[in-house]
């Protein structure tokens, strides 16, 4: 029997205990992976090539203030800017006030929209149909699937900010690399219906000519409007999105404390099991040592046993997390925050490393004691 075989055999000699430990650890690791995934998508995600080239300009005071439409031409004139479109939050109600029927609705300019958002894929006939219908709307493919929208369908958005109910025709369904759960329609529709919305835009989406120029463009835009009645705040798309996360509160501390609690709980569970299983085998250890196994080997055997169990738990947990994230990202009603989330290989590796480390640490103390046991004492031990 090889040492590896010995380790795996003893790891599962008490099947029920090992199974329970693996399950317990896997639930903790499942949670840890979920938290890391949320953290990652909030703070670390590599943005797409197009997104890193994009900026958002809003009113400096807050998002609830609109900007004058003539800013668009002024922004366009700034060096480094290739395209500008108005993107105005409509915030209407679809069907009713239920949160699961809520999604983002933006008014924009179809002529230039796909130049600023080139990663959105849509057939060209749908594109021209949208352009030619003032009441046309395009929807994210995931969203269209959720509500069962097809080309030609009519949807009504009841205005809450703007006193108008939009009657829109679905003219196109676009595919985004990361599902956006949004619809886009002609902003002109609202401008014509609501007098005070005329010649205003909620925000402007700006495409810069290169990712390096983003900071330069941002400060150029803000400098341009610094002393006007409507000063602006321009930031990269990622920074703009992060400001919404920041509004949720101290998310970082929240996630971190949960992660810490989870890791510590896992450590306790694993240590508990190892202490139990090693104590049972005091006599066995003495036999092993009589047979000539050194303290180091005995220590190594026990520690690897713990690592094997913890790793197995980690693996089950990570696999479950992948399934849950997959289900959540595509489920309806979980809100815009979870759309497009993915468990990355790096997150999986970190989770597995954490579980292995937990196994290692939890086995250190009991295994050390076991390895130190005096042979004669050990043989006499009756459990």
């Amino acid at each position, binding site marked *: 029997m090889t040492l590896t075989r010995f380790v795996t055999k003893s790891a599962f000699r008490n099947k029920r205990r090992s199974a329970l430990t693996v399950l317990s650890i896997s639930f903790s690791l499942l949670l840890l992976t979920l938290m890391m995934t949320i953290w990652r998508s909030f703070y670390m995600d590599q943005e797409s090539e197009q997104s890193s080239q994009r900026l958002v300009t809003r009113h400096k005071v*807050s998002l609830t203030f609109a900007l004058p439409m003539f800013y668009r031409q002024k922004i366009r004139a700034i060096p480094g800017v290739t395209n500008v479109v108005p993107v105005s939050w409509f915030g209407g109600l679809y069907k009713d006030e239920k949160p699961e029927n809520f999604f983002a609705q933006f008014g924009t300019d179809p002529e230039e929209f796909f130049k600023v958002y080139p990663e959105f894929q849509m057939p060209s006939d749908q594109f021209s149909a949208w352009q030619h219908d003032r009441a046309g709307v395009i929807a994210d493919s995931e969203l269209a699937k959720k509500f069962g929208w097809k080309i030609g369908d009519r949807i009504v958005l009841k205005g809450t900010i703007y006193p108008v109910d939009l009657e829109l025709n679905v003219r196109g369904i676009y595919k985004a690399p990361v599902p956006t759960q949004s619809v886009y329609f002609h902003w002109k529709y609202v401008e014509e219906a609501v007098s005070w919305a005329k010649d205003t835009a909620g925000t402007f989406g700006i495409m810069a000519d290169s990712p390096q120029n983003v900071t330069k463009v941002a400060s150029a835009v803000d400098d341009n409007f610094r002393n006007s009645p409507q000063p602006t705040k321009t930031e990269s798309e990622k920074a703009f999105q992060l400001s919404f996360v*920041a509004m949720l509160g101290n998310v970082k501390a929240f996630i971190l404390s949960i992660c810490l609690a989870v890791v510590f709980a896992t450590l*306790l569970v694993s240590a508990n099991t190892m202490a139990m299983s090693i104590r049972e085998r005091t006599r066995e250890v003495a036999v092993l040592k009589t047979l000539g196994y050194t303290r180091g080997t005995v220590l190594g055997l026990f520690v690897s046993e713990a690592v094997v169990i913890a790793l197995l738990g980690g693996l089950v947990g990570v696999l479950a997390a992948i399934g849950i994230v997959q289900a959540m990202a595509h489920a309806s009603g979980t809100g815009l925050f979870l759309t497009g989330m993915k468990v990355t290989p790096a997150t999986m590796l970190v989770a597995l490393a954490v579980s292995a480390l937990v196994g290692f640490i939890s086995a250190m103390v009991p295994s050390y004691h076991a390895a130190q046991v005096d042979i004669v004492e050990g043989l006499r031990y009756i459990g």
Partner: protein
Amino acid sequence: MAIPVSYNIRNLKLRKGLTIMTALGIALTVTTAIFIMALLAGLNKAFASSGDPLNVLVLRKGSTAELSGGFDASLLPTLRNLPGIAKDKNGDPTVSGEWVVVIVLPRKDGTGEVNVTVRGMMPDGLEIRRPKVNLVEGRWFTPGQREVVISDSIHKRFANANVGDSLAFGKGPWKVVGIFDAGGSAYESEIWGDVNQMASDFDRQGGYSSAYLRATDPVSADALKHRVSDDQRLKLEGMLETEYYEKQTRSGAPIKFVGLLVGIIMAIGSSFAAMNTMYAAVAYRGREIATLRVMGFSRPSILTSFVFESLLLSLLGALVGIVLMLPFNGMTTGTSNAVTFSEVVFSLRMTPTVVGYAILFAIIMGLLGGLAPAWHAARQNILTALRG
């Protein structure tokens, strides 16, 4: 005949290390659960205690929040003449036309910017809110001056927010002249000033985003609300202030969702750990249990005894968990209001209900973890166990 409780306690004491570690694991789970429940309790409290049933809030029809749009100032006199409005100290109807805007202020600890609600109100606006709001420092703002009063929590959480300081927003500095305490309500996240000053600063003259009417009694408040909504000329909608805030409690939905997920997953994990400990306890005591059986203790009494031991273990964990959470009780934090997009400040509240639920939560974990091993213990064959 039941096995004495002291037997279980002594058993738990015998395997100190095991007991402590399992209890700690349960304690961590309980702590997390309490943390999330206390957050939600605080948030609910912020909305539930907001608003006065005598105040009728008037918004443009179709609008769901004070921030979304507004109505023409010419409608205010019509509102003023509606019956059922209480008289203010000058003998006029207690009505306040208000402007609500959201501005961005940097947090004191540098963790980013926060949307804060700024409310411009008429002098009656203060009177309408007086029953719920106390001045703790300085004085109220003077109409016609660039002065503001800020809530206690804004004073604590943001830089340059003391009496005598100036806050820069709109078209220039505003002098902070007072700090008020809104008793944990949604006003706790607001800055108040004179409505005309505010409107001109934000170029919003000639309209109001909302109006508040103070009714004489609850019955006339209800009548007033319907009178506003039913008047076809006004195109306005009236609602009780309490109803308005009740709708905003859904701001807690993301916390609730994450909390539920975390709580359930951690609880399942801890139940498995408790099960492990209890199985070990049963295995160690195979002979003992058999002896108890020989002495005449029935299977059910052994089953109850072990389930009870598991419950003791989890209750111990709950106790530790509750104690661990105590220092965080009352800690204030903020989240985004899903309706107004502005920050709502609330504190962690370990209410008796929260503690009660935490204990219930621990009991469920104990039961889940204890039942199977106890069943196993009760079903053991006496002879084999005695020999083992």
